[in-house]
Each structure stands twice: as C-alpha cells, then as structure tokens.
C-alpha cells in the first residue's frame, strides 16, 4: 500500500533490548470465569516470556483464551493465579491506567466526540506531558501512520482502515513498553488487511516497541511474527519461530491448525541410525529421516508444497507413494491436486505451474501418478498428540 519514504520523521528511539529482563513475563498465570454456578477456565497455567522489541503473536482458534491472556497483561482482567511482570516488575494487581502498556482494541474503541488529533493526544494529556511536546508527538505519529491530513476529522468520518490506524497511533504515541493488539485487522477486507500487515510490521521495526499480537489467522501470524505461541483450550500448544512451527509442528493440533497438512498413519517396520521405514496403510513403504522404534504406530506428516507429483517412477531413495488423481484445481500460478492412495487416504499436493509439459497429462482425475518428496520433509508427529491435545506441548524435536 505504501512505500517507506525517507522524509518520515523518526518517532521514537528504538528501545535497546535488555537481554536479561523480558518486556513481559507470565508465570503460571491462569484465569477462571464464574458465571452463575458454572466455571470456565479461559486460560490454564500459562508460562510465557516475551522479549523486548519482539513481534510476538498469540495464535489459536476462537475461544482458546487469547483475548483473556492479553487483557490480563493490560490489567483489564485479574489473573486467578500466577504473576504478570512488565520489565521484571510484578504488576499483577496494578490497575490498567498505571501499567506502561497500551492496547489496540478489536473494535478500535475510538472516542467519537474527539478529533483524530485529540484521540491520539488523549494518553499524553492524562500523563501531563507539556502541551508543545504533545502537539509535536501527535503530529509525528499521525505522519507515521499517514493520517497527517486527517487530524481535524472525527473518527466517524474515516474509513475502517483509517480508524484502525488512529487506534494504532493513539496507543503508540505513548511509547509504551509493549503494545497489545487484539485481532486489529479482523474487521478489514482481505486486500487492506494484507497491506496493513506489512504496514504494521514496518511501524514495529521503525519504533522498536514490543508488539503482542492476537490473531486467529495463521497466515497473518506467520507473515508478521518473530515468535508465535499457538494456543489451544487455554494452553500453549507450541512456542517457536514461524518456520519452526510450520516445519516442525509439535502436535497434530498444530499441524492441522497451521497451513495444510497431510497426515499418513502407519507402522515402523525397520529402524536404523540412517533413518526408518514406515509402512503406510496403503502398503507403501516410506523412508523417514528420523530414527524411530520398530513396531511403533505413528502419524507421518508432509506439507503439500513439499510433494512432487509426476507420472515417471521416482528414485527409490526418496519417499514415494503411488496413487490416482481424485481432483485437480487450477489456480493460475499453482494447481492443487488431491491424490487418493490405495487405502483411500487422500493427500493434498500443491504444484507450482512452472515451465514443464507434464501438467496436462496428470490433470485428469483417475490418472495414475507417483508422489515423492525428500525424506527430510516428512516428519513424524510426537506421540500423544491427538486432535484434542491440550497439554503444554512445547517440547521440540531436534
């Protein structure tokens, strides 16, 4: 949407990361709501450390406790148990107006009776910043979010995307220790959302403030984050960089929630230090890079874009299975195939429509094909990782 212009005034000096003191830490934090006789555990025992200057995302399906976690950091909910620290200081029982974090609300919650400039100045005025400095900082901030020309408007006269940026400016102008964003782009349409993702990332880099970003959109989290905590049922299912989470999901839940995954059940028939062989339900033997226990029942997962599809028999050293095309969806730059194996298991394959001639031959449903991939691309999910897994499954495989 916007190019970074050199003329932009620097707004805040990037906070130098103090490696020893995390910006935010949650120690055994939980939250239980009581409504009548029922109790709902929104957040289980949560341990999280968010470093200064980090773009940290809380990712998970609706109702998994993301908002509640964020509201406990902001101070709008009291933790049922545990300790919330900002910059190492225990703030568990400190009121929101005395916490040095600011929030961008999903509904924006702009003040409808104030102009854009007065909305942005609100926090600074409450902190009794001198008027001249308020004016300067508000102007700089409106410049940063590219709303300098709209300072005198009321929020009701702005588009959704502009309101979103006012909400961001209103929080950022206070130079908080951390900015908390609760699904800030959810109300925008796809194109604007994608533009704003890049815009937010640029602003975060420019101001150097810690961002805690709540989203249920895995694509958004992968695009923007330094680290992601995938949440499920009030617990962290996996914590890691976008690549770690995408390439090495810690559980079946993570594998299925992030991107598209193919899950192939099978049994380990042979294991050596070189790797293992897994016999799949369809009868094919699969080479796996990892060393496993013979006889173990496992789920093998492989991402759709790692799989090569073709009519020629692949090299036996690769991981390969035969099947028939069940469906092919042409998407322009890529084609998405669904391939059925001998036992009925369906595998999704994304194939880039590069410069080759075999595409037509395998497009027709019913065509026999070979699927193959490099053995390191299939990955055996840890045990006890059924779909309802809600344990702190942040253990990593090397």
């Amino acid at each position, binding site marked *: 949407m916007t190019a970074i212009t050199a003329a932009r005034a620097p707004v805040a000096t990037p906070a130098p990361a103090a490696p020893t003191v995390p910006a935010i830490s949650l120690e055994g934090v939980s939250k239980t709501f009581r409504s009548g006789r029922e109790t709902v555990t929104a957040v289980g025992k949560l341990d999280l450390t968010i470093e200064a200057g980090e773009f940290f995302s809380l990712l998970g399906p609706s109702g998994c406790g993301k908002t509640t976690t964020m509201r406990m950091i902001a101070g709008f909910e009291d933790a049922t148990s545990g300790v919330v620290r900002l910059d190492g200081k225990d703030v568990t029982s400190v009121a929101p107006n005395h916490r040095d974090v600011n929030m961008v609300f999903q509904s924006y919650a702009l003040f409808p009776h104030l102009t854009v400039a007065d909305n942005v100045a609100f926090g600074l005025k*409450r902190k009794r910043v001198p008027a001249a400095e308020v004016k300067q900082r508000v102007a700089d901030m409106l410049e940063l979010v590219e709303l300098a020309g709209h300072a005198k408007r009321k929020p*009701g006269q702005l588009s959704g995307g502009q309101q979103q940026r006012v909400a961001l400016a209103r929080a950022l102008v206070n130079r908080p220790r951390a900015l908390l964003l609760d699904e800030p782009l959810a109300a925008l349409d796809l194109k604007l959302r994608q533009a704003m993702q890049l815009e937010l990332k640029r602003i975060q880099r420019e101001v150097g403030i810690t961002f805690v970003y709540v989203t249920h959109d895995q694509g958004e989290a992968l695009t923007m984050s330094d680290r992601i905590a995938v949440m499920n049922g009030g617990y962290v299912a996996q914590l890691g960089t976008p690549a770690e989470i995408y390439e090495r999901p810690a559980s079946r839940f993570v594998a299925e929630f992030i991107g598209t995954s193919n899950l192939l059940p099978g049994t380990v028939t042979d294991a050596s230090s070189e790797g293992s062989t897994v016999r799949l339900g369809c009868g094919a033997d699969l080479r796996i890079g990892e060393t496993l226990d013979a006889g173990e029942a496992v789920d093998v997962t492989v991402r759709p874009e790692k799989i090569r599809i073709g009519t020629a028999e692949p090299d036996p050293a690769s991981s390969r299975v035969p099947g028939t095309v069940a469906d092919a969806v042409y998407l322009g730059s890529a084609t998405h195939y669904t391939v059925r194996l001998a036992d009925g298991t369906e595998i999704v394959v994304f194939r880039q429509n590069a410069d080759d001639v075999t595409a037509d031959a395998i497009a027709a449903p019913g065509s026999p094909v070979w699927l193959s991939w490099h053995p390191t691309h299939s990955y055996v999910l840890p045990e006890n990782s059924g779909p309802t897994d809600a344990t702190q499954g942040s253990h990593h495989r090397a």
Partner: protein
Amino acid sequence: MRRKLAPYLLALPAWAWLAMFFVVPLAGMASLSLTSGNVITGFSQTFNIGNYLTAIDTYGEQIARSLFYGLSATLICIAIGYPAAYWIAFKGGRHKSTYLLLLLLPFFVSFVLRTISWKFTLSDNGIVLGTLKQIGVLPADFGVLNTAPAVILGLAYNFLPFMVLPIYAVLERMDHGVVEAAHDLYASRVQAFVRVVLPISLPGVFAGGLMTFIPTTADYVNASVLGGTGNTMIGSIIQTQYLVNNAYPIASAITFVLMGVLLLGIFSYARALGTERVMEVQAK
C-alpha cells in the same frame, strides 16, 4: 420528477396534521391575543398590545417562578436520572428491560392521580412525615405540602422518565469499549467519565433536558395539587383565565409570552451545550 415528489407526498398527512392542529389554532390564538372585549359583548380585533403588557406586568412573577421551578425540576431529574440511566445501561446486564419497565411502571397510572397520591404521601401527618414526627426526627409543626419544594419534587417525580430514557438510549448505544480505552490511556475512573462517557452522552442529556424543562415549566397540575397560594405557576393562571374567567385575549397573550421565554431559554441552552457538536455526535 415523480420520484422526487414522492417523499413530500408521503409527508403530506403529517403536514396536514400539523397545519390543522398546530398552525391554525396558533394563528387563531395570535389573533385572539390582540383583541379586546369580553365574552358577553364579544371580542373585536383592535391590535391591542396592552394584553401583552398586562401579561408581563401582572404575571411576570408567576412566569419567573415557573421557569425557576421547571429549571429546578430539570436539574433534579438530571441528578437522579443520569445515574439511574448509567446504572441500567452499564450494570443492568440481562435485566435491562426489566429495570426500564420498573422505572415506567408508576406512569401507567394517570398523571393527576399520581400527583394526588403524592399529596397523601407528603401530607403533614401522612406516611412519611407522620412517621418521622413520631420517632422525633422532625418537629411536630413541620410540613412540606403547599411549599415550593413540594411542587418542584412533584414535577421532578412526574417527568423523571423523560430524562432517563433519552440518556439511557445514548449510553446503551455507545461502544462500552471506550471506557476501557480511556483506562488504558492512563485515565482514572473519574477522568474516564468526565472526558469520555459524559461528553458522548450529552445529546441524551440535551434531549432529556428539553423533554422535562418545557412540560414542567408549563405544568399546572403539580402547583394546583401540591402547592399553596404562594406557589402558583403560570400554567394554572392560563388555565384559570381561559376556563374560569373566560378572559381569552389575556390568556392568549400570557401563552405567547411563555412560549417566547421558553424558546429563548432553549436557544441559550443549545448554545451553551454547543448543539452543533451535540447533534453531530448523535448523528453518528
């Protein structure tokens, strides 16, 4: 052309209604207020400005008193009605409509009956004062009836819902997230109310103010029932002049003076609150 005409045609019944029951009688009354004569000899149009001078001269005191009572009742309605509306809108939870119904329940009873029941309640040895006198909180000769406070309280009581409902409507409709946003931006509870909730709800206070100030100032029931000879309001005078004395010209003149004074009051009120700003928020 026809499409442009349609909205006007749709508004025709409303215009006809207004013309028939408002504009025509008003014009008639304006003309009547400038006549001289009496019911027996008949009234003749003499452009008698003297009616207005008499109205202001003789009844200026009652007009001023009515404005004071109306204003006091309106302020009491704000003081009681705002917290009530706030509480229902913010803390009412699932039972909001129940609370609103409870608030309106007394008003299913006729206006006059309600006021008369207040007379019983406030009477010198009635349920409230009698009890307080018995336990020795009040002296035996203490009384409320036939005083200015009795009339003002009666007015405030009778018009309270007209204050609560518009304020409630605005508070209910506003995004409650703005209160949290204010706290998040370092505002204390008091600051969040003064800087955010109150300004956003001003259009409701404005509407409620009009809807209580105008009818309370012109009211004649409360002063007649709860007030004494020293608390006469202008509404009672107009009523007496029309229906008892049949002095139509002077009654009409007083009516127009009252209207003028009310309009003046409303305009300065709108000015003070900044109607443009107020209306702008409301239009959102």
